[in-house]
């Protein structure tokens, strides 16, 4: 046992550093001089929105993944469960984002198992921030930009529903009512702001059905002008993915329920 090991009391043992020690996760991308742009067009995907409503937080995302002008996939799932009460939704490059989600999911579990307690909400929010920061070099090189939303429910504090959005460098911002990211987000932000301010009720007061309708209308509007957003595919019957995080944990809304509300209130 060398001196360094003798002084290691396990304090450095967070999951990403364990992965790096074993060579399973690349080092933080270096930010150096860039002589040329990336020669590949990365697959990207986008429009994500989230807002607080009466039960908790609703997170919704369209299903389209694009590469330049090409639609790569029409059933991408960009709203990901990280643990029992946390959702990460991604806009940007899925390859990087899904890897981040995987690291994050394992990090939270690894922390709980090793430290024998849940990671705090602040700790979780910070962990994602750190992953984004480590990825910033790739984002600059044009091959791995990810701009996520993180929604969680902290039973220990009030208000319990917590919603954060990030920029590509890893800055975290806590949203009071709603957040949207991705190429279709300007339209969505407009709609959510309008609904929240001049709608029948503020977003935080509306019930689940009403929340689903707002999310569907917002995504449909986003896809109207933004080609990178799938919105609602009326022919192939592809609906956005919606998840709700509340005191009971995470609920993935069944597609039939979304379809029913869509046909009644949106179509």
């Amino acid at each position: 046992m060398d001196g360094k090991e003798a002084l290691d009391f396990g304090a450095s043992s967070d999951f990403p550093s364990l992965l790096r020690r074993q060579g399973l996760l690349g080092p933080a991308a270096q930010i150096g001089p860039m002589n040329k742009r990336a020669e590949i067009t990365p697959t990207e995907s986008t429009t994500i929105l989230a807002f607080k409503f009466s039960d908790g937080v609703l997170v919704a995302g369209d299903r389209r993944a694009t590469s330049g002008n090409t639609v790569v996939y029409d059933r991408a799932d960009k709203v990901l469960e990280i643990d029992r009460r946390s959702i990460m939704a991604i806009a940007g490059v899925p390859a990087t984002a899904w890897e981040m989600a995987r690291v994050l999911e394992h990090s939270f579990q690894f922390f709980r198992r090793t430290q024998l307690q849940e990671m705090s909400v602040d700790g979780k929010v910070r962990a994602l921030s750190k992953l984004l920061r480590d990825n910033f070099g790739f984002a600059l090189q044009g091959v791995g930009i990810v701009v996520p939303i993180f929604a969680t429910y902290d039973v220990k504090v009030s208000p319990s529903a917590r919603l954060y959005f990030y920029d590509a460098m890893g800055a975290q911002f806590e949203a009071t009512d709603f957040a949207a990211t991705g190429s279709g987000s300007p339209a969505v932000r407009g709609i959510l702001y309008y609904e929240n301010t001049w709608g029948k009720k503020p977003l935080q007061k509306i019930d689940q059905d009403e929340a689903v309708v707002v999310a569907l209308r917002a995504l449909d509007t986003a896809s109207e002008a933004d080609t990178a957003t799938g919105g609602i595919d009326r022919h192939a019957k592809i609906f956005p993915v919606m998840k709700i995080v509340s005191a009971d944990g995470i609920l993935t809304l069944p597609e039939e329920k979304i379809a029913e509300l869509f046909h009644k209130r949106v179509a």
Partner: protein
Amino acid sequence: MIEEPYRWVEAVATRRDYIEMQLATGSPVVALGYSEGILLLTVGQQKLFEIYDRIALGAIGHPGDIERLRMAAIELASSEGFTRSVADVSLRRLAYYSLSPVMKNAFEQIYGAPFLARLLFVEIGTSLADDLFLEVEYDGAINLHPSNGGNTPFAVLAASKKSAEQMAEFLRKRFQSGKDLSATLELALDTWTVGQSKTDEAMPAEDDIRRQWRERVGSGTISAAVLERNSNRAVRYRAVEASELAPLIAK
């Protein structure tokens, strides 16, 4: 002195006595299959742990050594689960391939410190027949408890061989498969009580066991955890809550 083979054998034997003596006051751990999965129960300080989605650990020994082994197990399982998938995290491999050789090595390197720990891992499978109860001794020996197709889905960890035998004998007589959690908690505490008897005492009579609960448990806290087979969550491990243990303490 240990250049001679005989000296080495003698030193290892002395070391075995020393470790057994160190472990002699450990509080037993009981693992029992029940209708919805596997229950782990013990009394005293925290020594039931979540290792991975489907694997749990109970231990007797020095907290520092338990901690090192527990961390190693979590790290191994987590990096395997991360790089491949949850389905590729195997208790058999974790024990045979990773832990056992290291523990054997530490035990036989008689100038270094051995692990003062005895471990009981349980892994929940998709069916009763896939459940695994696996004991790793301080010398790296592995004792795999077959569940006999679900007829004997139980294992115990005790401070001494004699206690472990008494507990196993008690369970062979009393265990019935498919019981619910509350009945299984009671049986587990009965079994723990049997394991707490002094080794030179005869096994307590059935009526005595309940009477001994209170004095044996004393001021210690009962802790229990379950691995649930048909949970809709990926993580099957759950600590049994105080409210579920309350009826047990009231008795």
